[in-house]
């Protein structure tokens, strides 16, 4: 009976396994295989020569990768710093207002990222909502902050805020109040409580929040295109170009594989350090 149940279990998992195999692993395998093909071929029936990987260095694609990872890192650090007080408030102080805040932040996700970013363009462009009004009222205009690295990082921070805020709030809510009070009672200053109680006990939330924001920001393309006006080229931008205008599938694939390996390693390392059950509240 148990054996039959087990068999039925495997059988009923088949459809989902098939979806995973076809939708997730098959494209990955294709991408990996194409990445080792010679330049500009459209078939996997060629001798592998790994030439696409040497192009990564020789033609300066590593610069795009560094920009992507650098801006992702900067936006993650900024997100962590600005989200902490808000997350702390949501976890420990706001009570009912936390729900209002949660709904407000989630609502922003209902509108497409691109549309929101174009909204910022209209707001910030020369002659746009802000500069246009100020110039009309005062006669003094100023340059648009658009089309530069800082505005791209602003865009990343703006778009990925929920992915830092919610895990962080969840992490902070796992810090027991009495542990903070006991630390104070034993002589700890606010800073010492933060360093020795809050941060280590909220660590799972911090790790998950940072991981999500970093991974998403490293793969982001819209911010640099729409807000940054391609002031810098990100690695995802290069990948897209290689597949489309460049018609060089092996190059696009090799760039993808490099990005996937870097981010995958980071993600696995991060996840191995946290207890997901604890985050989901299944155990304390």
């Amino acid at each position, binding site marked *: 009976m148990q054996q039959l149940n087990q068999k039925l279990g495997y059988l009923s998992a088949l459809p989902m396994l098939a979806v995973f195999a076809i939708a997730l692993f098959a494209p990955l395998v294709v991408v990996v295989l194409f990445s080792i093909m010679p330049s500009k071929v459209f078939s996997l029936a060629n001798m592998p020569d790994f030439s696409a990987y040497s192009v990564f260095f020789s033609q300066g694609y590593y610069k795009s990768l560094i920009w992507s990872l650098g801006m992702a890192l900067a936006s993650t650090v900024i997100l962590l710093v600005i989200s902490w007080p808000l997350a702390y408030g949501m976890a420990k102080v706001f009570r009912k207002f936390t729900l209002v805040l949660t709904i407000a932040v989630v609502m922003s996700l209902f509108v497409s990222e691109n549309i929101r970013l174009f909204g910022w363009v209209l707001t910030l462009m020369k002659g746009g909502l802000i500069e246009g009004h100020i110039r009309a009222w005062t006669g003094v205009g100023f340059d648009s902050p658009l089309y530069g690295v800082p505005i791209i990082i602003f865009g990343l921070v703006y778009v990925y805020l929920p992915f830092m805020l919610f895990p962080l709030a969840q992490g902070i809510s796992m810090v027991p109040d009495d*542990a903070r009070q*006991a*630390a104070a009672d*034993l002589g700890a200053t606010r800073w010492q409580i933060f360093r020795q109680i809050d941060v280590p006990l909220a660590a799972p939330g911090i790790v998950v929040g940072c991981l999500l924001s970093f991974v998403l920001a490293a793969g982001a393309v819209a911010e640099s295109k729409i807000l940054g006006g391609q002031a810098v080229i990100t690695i995802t931008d290069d990948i897209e170009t290689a597949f489309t205008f460049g018609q060089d599938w092996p190059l696009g694939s090799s760039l993808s594989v490099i990005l996937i390996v870097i981010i995958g390693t980071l993600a696995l390392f991060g996840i191995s350090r946290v207890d997901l059950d604890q985050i989901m509240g299944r155990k304390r």
Partner: protein
Amino acid sequence: MVSSDPILRLEGVVKKFGAFTALHGVDLEIREGEFFTIVGPSGSGKSTMIRLLVGMDEVTDGAIWLRDQRIEAMPANLRPTCMVFQSLALFPHMSVGQNIEFPLKLRKVASSARKERALELLDLLRLPRDYYDKRISQCSGGEKQRVALARALAFDPEILFFDEPLSALDYRLRKTLEKELKNLHQRTGKTFVYITHSLEEAMVMSDRIAIMKAGHFEQIAVADEIYGRPVSRFVAEFMGEVNLFEVTSRDGTTLESPCLTVKSGTTNESLPAGGNGLLMVRPEFIRFCGEDESPDYRIKGRLLEEYALGSRIQYEVETETGQILTVEKLRQDRASSGDIGSEVMLGFDAARTHLIKDT
């Protein structure tokens, strides 16, 4: 060890939460080296009191003095006192050793000296030294209790506060730890201020007990006095089973009560003429009388119930006026006349009674 100088003094301490007054101008003196227990039912203000004493809450009015220093406005982390929490509040991400060393680390004590002190404290609390590297989650309830105590002692506080730390433990462990705490108090010579709702805990450990009710102290005295000479019905009833007779004094010399037959001239306490009071007698001082005995007070009644309380037997007796009395006997002195429903004669002596002059 107990000196007569107060280490902690409260003057007219008031605490209000909005319109609710939790503490109504409380005065208190706690002596150096004393084991002082504050007992009260939930809602009496004892938790509010300890939060003010350790600095986790601010007084609305009044002053708290630690020796000659005013501390009511001083934040918790600057006060030289320390508390063992009801939840223990151990740091789950640190080992036993790191927990104990936490206050020392904050003071930048060198790590070798910290470890030495932590091991000493493990010895003092009778925990094996190899617990130093254990995780908190690997410790049992009683072990966690000892770690929390060790951590508080590592802080080397002027006063050690306890907020019902034993209430979550099972009965046997609680009994063991009560005695250990008393022992620890004697060995360390520190001032302990203990908060509990359990009269038994208070009686076992304390030098002095304060009974709290609705935001003020009803009585502050040594355990025997609070048990034997309570100042009010509340204290009398809070300190265990008690029989209270409403009495009046018509002429100022003898006490009268509808259900009591008083042998004349036996009261050793008196009320002013026309005054009312409560005559208290604890259940262990009432006895079943034979025909030939003549106690100072006699009551006729009917035996209602008999309960075995382990070493003691408790009886419920209904008097002719309908009052239910509680009588307790040691098991070896178990009453022989005791058929449920039978008529019994109870008696007690004036020397065993106490007159409460409030009504």
